[in-house]
């Protein structure tokens, strides 16, 4: 109909095409803008610093895969990688369990002070980190946990706890009460109900929180840089930063190190992109 209409067809159709083209250009440009820097980084990670200095934008030729081996072995990125892995996996496991238990109690049971407790736990999400950072430093020093991966793990648990409780409470509260009544009539106790009903049913939400916590802690910088000084105990973010401080000009090696830190995230993203996106935006999408 609209195509056959007498007056606007040419203009309308032309306008339509023009706007489609403009849209396509904008979209292509933005895609280049987001992915371009990352691809540039990837090319530099398989080139030697000498090659990079000659031309920063050339395609790798040949691919110097040994860059990764050098970074991994000689530049200590293996140490950083394993430190990060240990701290993040431990912290995520603990915070998920602790947070899920608390979220379940807050979502399911009526007791005096329930909402107040929830509010207190939740509101610490907005705290600027400095309010705890300086004291945590002193406390960890007092208890001999300064400059230790255990201390950093504990701090990470506390950092992610509010968000974990918030996200899981919201999900657990939507599990119908009837399921709990049925389990109760079947003779299941409170702990068993949590283990056999809440955790399995809450698995999608728990997976989302796991991913979110993993990414945030994998990328965490401020607390790590304050609480870890020993080069052997550095996590990836502060390891990269330290390496860059010492070898500012060694762009190829920095790029390789950065790639090592990004690869786990990218691999996870390739396989679970939807889940990751949902995890990262879980607190904001309603």
């Amino acid at each position, binding site marked *: 109909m609209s195509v056959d209409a007498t007056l606007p067809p040419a203009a309308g159709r032309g306008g339509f095409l023009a706007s489609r083209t403009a849209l396509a250009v904008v979209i292509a440009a933005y895609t280049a803008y987001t992915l371009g820097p990352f691809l540039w980084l990837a090319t530099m990670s398989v080139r030697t610093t000498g090659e990079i200095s000659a031309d920063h934008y050339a395609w790798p030729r040949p691919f110097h895969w040994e860059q990764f081996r050098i970074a991994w072995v000689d530049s200590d990125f293996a140490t950083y990688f394993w430190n990060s892995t240990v701290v993040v996996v431990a912290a995520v496991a603990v915070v998920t369990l602790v947070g899920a238990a608390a979220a379940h109690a807050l979502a399911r049971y009526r007791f005096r002070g329930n909402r107040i407790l929830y509010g207190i736990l939740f509101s610490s999400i907005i705290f600027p980190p400095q309010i705890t950072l300086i004291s945590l430093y002193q406390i960890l020093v007092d208890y001999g946990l300064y400059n230790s991966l255990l201390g950093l793990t504990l701090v990470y648990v506390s950092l992610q706890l509010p968000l974990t409780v918030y996200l899981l409470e919201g999900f657990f509260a939507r599990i119908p009460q*009837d399921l709990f*009544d049925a389990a109760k009539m079947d*003779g299941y106790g409170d702990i068993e109900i949590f283990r056999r009903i809440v955790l399995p049913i809450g698995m999608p939400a728990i997976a989302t929180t796991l991913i979110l916590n993993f990414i945030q802690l994998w990328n965490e910088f401020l607390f790590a840089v304050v609480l870890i000084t020993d080069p052997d105990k550095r996590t990836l973010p502060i390891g990269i930063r330290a390496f860059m401080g010492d070898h500012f000009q060694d762009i190829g090696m920095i790029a390789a190190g950065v790639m090592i830190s990004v690869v786990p995230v990218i691999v996870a993203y390739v396989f679970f992109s939807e889940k990751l996106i949902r995890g990262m935006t879980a607190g904001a999408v309603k």
Partner: protein
Amino acid sequence: MAVVQLSKICKRYGSGGPVVVDNVDVTIGDGEFMVLLGPSGCGKSTTLRMIAGLETISSGTLSINGRTMNDVPAKDRDIAMVFQSYALYPHMTVGENLAFGLKRRRTPPAEVKRRVGETAAMLGLVPCLDRKPQALSGGQRQRVALGRAMVREPMVFLFDEPLSNLDAALRVNTRNELIKQHHRLASTMIYVTHDQVEAMTMGTRICVMNGGRVAQVGRPLDVYWNPADTFVARFLGSPPMNLFTVPLAAGDRIRTPAIDTALTRWAPAALAPLTGQEVVLGVRAEDLHLAAASTGSAEAGRIRGRVFAVEPLGAETLLAVETEGGAECTARLPRDTRAEVGAVVDLFFRPDAAFLFDARTTAAIPAQVRSAGTGPAGAPGRAGAIP
């Protein structure tokens, strides 16, 4: 084998909180199918949950087979419950759902397997045993929920509006299935619903509740023909009973511009003290006729009013009429009835089809004719009068 006795059961939330169940006194006999019927918020579900052990009993005594159950945990009451939302565990297969309660009770695995198999066969669930609940249709889920209760072979079954999530056709099927299972198991069953059709068709007795109190307990037709008050009168039957608040004239008659009837069912002595006061006259929609002759009574009662809606339903036609006093009244008439909106019509009824209630207390005024037969005699006695 279970007799469930509720005596003076109350439920209130908080010390000064609202009383949601008020002094409920009912005994449910062994093998009985008792329906707790009432509108939402009447306390029927809370009563059921107190029987189940899912709510504490504020005061009163709950006993099963003479044993006081107030402090016995839900799991030790030997009661199974079918929930409105079915409450199937979404992460378990149908088979695991059925076995879940048994496993917890340390039933030997072979026994679990046998009972799950038997129950599944009985309910036609064998093909679904390995599926998860979300892969099932509504009717199948309902049967799994029922099966989960049956597999435990409990003393008492509780049902909390189990059919409300089904579509109309499935509801009829499942209703019949439940009746069948009740006959087969001969267990005590307590069934909560707000649907009077379910109550009438399934219950061996029904207990009508209103505002936390028991309004009436009795066999379905007894309650239907002898409602204890206006609430029960209107709650049972569709369309609900027509009620008119009218002054009681001397000489055992009601005579207003719109309504004129003799009151043959009441002894003059019973009505004498009410003469001149307001009473509530009740007539069921199916007892109203357009011709005096079709009532089969020489001195039929009459209601005059203006037709404001004609609803031909196919099998019958509903006529909505507004009387001069502004009262509305529905008549259930044969399907070939023709009537014009706006026309003034007379609706006739046998005087012994009338009900009378105290306008102040809403309680029924005991009728002579059926006062002796509040029991089973009432219904058959009336059977001839039903067209």
